[in-house]
């Protein structure tokens, strides 16, 4: 039946192909806002207005500096990609009924799962970089040039951490009927809880505890230190914590994915909408 001899790729090479090429293909297949007329308003314009709104509100009411709001909001807007993009990259498999064909393949699940995070991470970085850039251009946000690479590192770690959290939400979408409600709540809860608009110490104790296990909280704190002229040494503990939380969320996400895969086989829920 086959004139072409079908040969199997070596295991390591195939792992990285699924991770990089597969991750990108699935992003193109599942991310709703991929066309420029959807991407620009959703991933760039709306987050920009969020930054402008809070910076001008802060200035008008005198409750916080421009740096406070620019750093907080510019880092937080990566969750447009981290939360929504990652949820789409996983939960949409069920919505589009492509989950069964994928799970019927022998593909390595770690590569299949984590590879989806990479384009989401890049997209999140793009949104945050755009936020900082426009803030520098029109809001007179001026961190010292020396702090820029350190700020970039903080943004990278924070975006990766947020992507890990988004993976966990996306994994829930493999089982939950309406994960978008949860994603919406998560996005706005992060505005409140991660110290984006309200300093962490002003939150009630319980919410402070929640804030410490969420992504971005520590990254935003590190970003503010760096943007206001502190040395990297002062920000390192926050960056490490952010990284640790991101890794923890990614591990939880993968365990949830495997759990729901097993549950799906047990209950037959893969294609039930």
């Amino acid at each position: 039946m086959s004139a072409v001899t079908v040969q199997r790729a070596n295991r390591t090479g195939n792992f990285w192909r699924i991770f990089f090429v597969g991750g990108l293909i699935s992003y193109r297949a599942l991310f709703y806002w991929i066309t420029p007329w959807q991407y620009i308003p959703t991933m760039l314009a709306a987050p920009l207005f969020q930054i402008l709104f809070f910076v001008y509100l802060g200035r008008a009411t005198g409750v916080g500096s421009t740096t406070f709001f620019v750093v907080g909001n510019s880092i937080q807007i990566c969750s447009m990609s981290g939360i929504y993009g990652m949820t789409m990259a996983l939960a949409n498999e069920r919505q589009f009924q492509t989950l069964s064909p994928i799970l019927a393949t022998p593909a390595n699940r770690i590569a299949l799962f984590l590879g989806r995070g990479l384009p989401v991470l890049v997209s999140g970085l793009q949104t945050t970089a755009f936020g900082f850039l426009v803030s520098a251009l029109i809001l007179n946000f001026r961190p010292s040039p020396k702090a820029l690479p350190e700020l970039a590192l903080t943004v990278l770690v924070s975006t990766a951490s947020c992507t890990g959290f988004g993976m966990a939400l996306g994994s829930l979408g493999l089982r939950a009927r309406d994960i978008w409600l949860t994603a919406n709540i998560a996005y706005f809860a992060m505005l409140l809880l991660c110290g984006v608009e309200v300093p962490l110490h002003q939150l009630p104790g319980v919410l402070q505890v929640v804030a410490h296990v969420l992504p971005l909280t520590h990254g935003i704190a590190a970003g503010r230190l760096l943007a206001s002229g502190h040395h990297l040494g002062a920000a390192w503990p926050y960056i490490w914590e952010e990284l640790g939380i991101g890794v923890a969320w990614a591990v939880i996400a993968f365990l949830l994915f495997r759990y729901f895969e097993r549950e799906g086989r047990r209950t037959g829920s893969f294609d039930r909408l």
Partner: protein
Amino acid sequence: MSTARPLSGEPAIDVADLRRTYRTTTGTLRRHRLEIEAVRGVTLRVEPGELFGLLGPNGAGKTTIIRVLCTLLLPTSGQVRVLGMDVVERPRDVRRQIGYVFGGDRGLYDRLSALDNLRYFADLYALEPRMQRKRINEVLDLVGLQGRGTERVEGFSRGMRQRLHLARGLLHDPPVLFFDEPTIGVDPVGAREVRQVVADLARAGKTILLTTHYMFEADSLCDRIAVIAQGQIVAEGTPQQLKAGVTARTVVEIEAYGVPEQTVARIRELPEVEAVTIEVRDQAQLLTVQASEGSQLTGRLLQLLEGVRVERIAAREPTLEDAYVALVTAG
């Protein structure tokens, strides 16, 4: 990749006393648990190179069996092996050796081209990257989608989507193929093409398990058929053997208008009647009454249909469809 074979004498697909129960809940405040037994003790063997049909009405349990075989569902009990490998214990090994093609127009990435859909699955099935392009072109040719690969799937007709499902299932050239109602919703010409591909695959030595509720499809394609109803196999054999099971019957067809339900019920209650089906054709109803051989039914039926406008009444030879109806309506 197509060389995997079961040990000599071992069936390619071996299902022993398979049971599958779904548990679900209803109600919002007061939750009620429901148990639905979709498959109730199915046993079947498919030999290497055989095209085996699983024939049954909607909800009979066909898809559940296929999904267990494709490692997408765990059996509640029983043993299921593909090429000698247990689907519960060695799912990853089983997945390398099987292709799964299902019916319907979902299950593809609409925003991607057909080529990208296949490229993605070529990686998931671990095809060597250097031969992927050739193999993808080959399967596109095979299913009649040559020249359409760069088009987005969202613009594909249902028949084209079905052919793309088929191409995806064949990408890694698996020795065992599962087709779950591959022609459902496809126009007659498209369906004939899909059937032709299935027949060619069978000729090439693939082991195929095909589910369908189209009689002629099973009759024309399958070496053997199992008829499944309410989760149980009610008959198994070659199409000829199944037909032979109803040759000792009388079949009467009645074309009439406005037959009341009570009249149909009274026909069913006649002692010699084995099965009654009703098909609506525009304004008319076509009643097919199966009865034991030698029954003199026509007069009694006309008596029962008094007051109903009867257009035509005639006895005819039983067909495979009658065999199927008799089997799935029995008990």
